C-alpha cells in the first residue's frame, strides 16, 4: 500500500487533518501534524484495512538549522495486513514550545521509546507521566543526540558521598517508587 492510499483512508477516518506523503525508498511514509497525532494513530490501529497493531520504533532526526527542528519518526507494522508504515511528525525544539502528545494510549509499548527520545533529543511528550532519563544518568544535563551536542565530551569523574538513610526512610523510598510505578 503506498502513501497516497493510506492518506485517503485516513482522511475518511480522521476529520480535518492535513497529511503529506513523504519520500522514501522502502515503505510508505506519511507526515502527520502533531495536533492530530493521537487520533491518526488510533485510526491507523483500528481501521480494518490498515490495522497497524505493532509499534516498532520511536526515534527522531535533528535537522538543526531548519525550523521545525526535529522530525519524530514512528515505525508501524501491521501483522494482519502485512504492511509497514513510517509516520513522521515535525516538531520544534521543546524550548521553542515543541510538544507532542504521547501515543501510549494507542500503543502502550510507546512508554520507554518516548522516554528515550526525550532523553536523547529533548522532545517533550505531553501526558506521558514518566518522562525521565532512560539511557543517560538521572542527573545528566543536555540531550546527546542533538546536532549541537558535541560528539565527544570529557567529563570529570563524579563521586558521591555515601548515602545515609535510616531504615524507615529507605522503606518509604521503596514504597514511593512502587506506587509511582503502579499507575
Amino acid at each position: 500500500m503506498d502513501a497516497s492510499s493510506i492518506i485517503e483512508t485516513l482522511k475518511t477516518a480522521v476529520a480535518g487533518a492535513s497529511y503529506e506523503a513523504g519520500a522514501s525508498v522502502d515503505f510508505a511514509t506519511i507526515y502527520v501534524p502533531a495536533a492530530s497525532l493521537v487520533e491518526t494513530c488510533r485510526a491507523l490501529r483500528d481501521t480494518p484495512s490498515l490495522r497497524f497493531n505493532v509499534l516498532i520504533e520511536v526515534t527522531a532526526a535533528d535537522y538543526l538549522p531548519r525550523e521545525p527542528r526535529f522530525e519524530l519518526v514512528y515505525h508501524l507494522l501491521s501483522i494482519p495486513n502485512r504492511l509497514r508504515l513510517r509516520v513522521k511528525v515535525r516538531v520544534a525544539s521543546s524550548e521553542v514550545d515543541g510538544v507532542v502528545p504521547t501515543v501510549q494510549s494507542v500503543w502502550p509499548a510507546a512508554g520507554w521509546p518516548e522516554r528515550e527520545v526525550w532523553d536523547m533529543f529533548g522532545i517533550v511528550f505531553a501526558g506521558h507521566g514518566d518522562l525521565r532519563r532512560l539511557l543517560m544518568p538521572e542527573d545528566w544535563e543536555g540531550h546527546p543526540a542533538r546536532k549541537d551536542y558535541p560528539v565527544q565530551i570529557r567529563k570529570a569523574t563524579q563521586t558521591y558521598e555515601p548515602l545515609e538513610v535510616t531504615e524507615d526512610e529507605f522503606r518509604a523510598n521503596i514504597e514511593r517508587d512502587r506506587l509511582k510505578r503502579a499507575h
Partner: protein
Amino acid sequence: MAELRTETMTVNMGPQHPSTHGVLRLVLELDGETIKSCMPTIGYLHTGIEKTAEQKKWQQVVPLVERMDYLAAQSNSLSYVLCVEKLLGLEMPQRVKDIRVLLTELQRIASHLVWIGTHAMEIGAVSMLFYAIRERELLRAGRRLPVLPELFPRRRTARGPAARVPRRGERVSRSVPREDRRIRRAADEKRHVHAAHAGRRRDHAR
C-alpha cells in the same frame, strides 16, 4: 505463638552479575524467591553509536556496527550495508547475495554456539562451553567449511570480528587469483633478496 513477619526484600542485582550477560541493573522486590516487582536500569552499554556514525563515511561505519553484536559480527554489517544499498539504489549480483547469506548463517551458528555453551555452563555442564568455543574457533578459521576459503583468510590473530587487513608482502592463500599471486611472489622475492643481503638465511619453503 509469635506472628510471622512477612515483608518483601528489595535486592539490587547490580550492573555486573554473571547471569545478566552484560550490564543491566535490576532492583528486585522479592517475596522469598518470587519476584514481586522489578525496576530495570539500562544505559550501561550505550555507546552513542548513532551519533558517532553521523560523523563518519559509510565505509567507516561498517566496522563500527560489527561491534554491536560481537557474537555474529557480519550480520550487523550486512544489515547496515543493505540499508546503504537501499538508499543508493544499488542492486547486488546474485553471487554476492548468496555469499552474504552463507556468511550470515555461519555467523548465526557461531552466535548460537555461544548461547548453548554458556547456557550449559550455567546449569553445570561446564565442558560444553569449551566444546562450543572450540567449534567457534574452527568456524572462524574456516576449517568447518572447506569451500569458499576466501571467506576465511588464513592468518588472523584477533578473536574479534573477521575483518582482516593483510600486511604488505604477506603470503596469501592459494585461493587468490593467479595475477595476484605473481605480484605476491615478487614481493616475497624482494624480501628474500633483502634478507640475503643482510646475511641471513631464509627458508624458501615457508
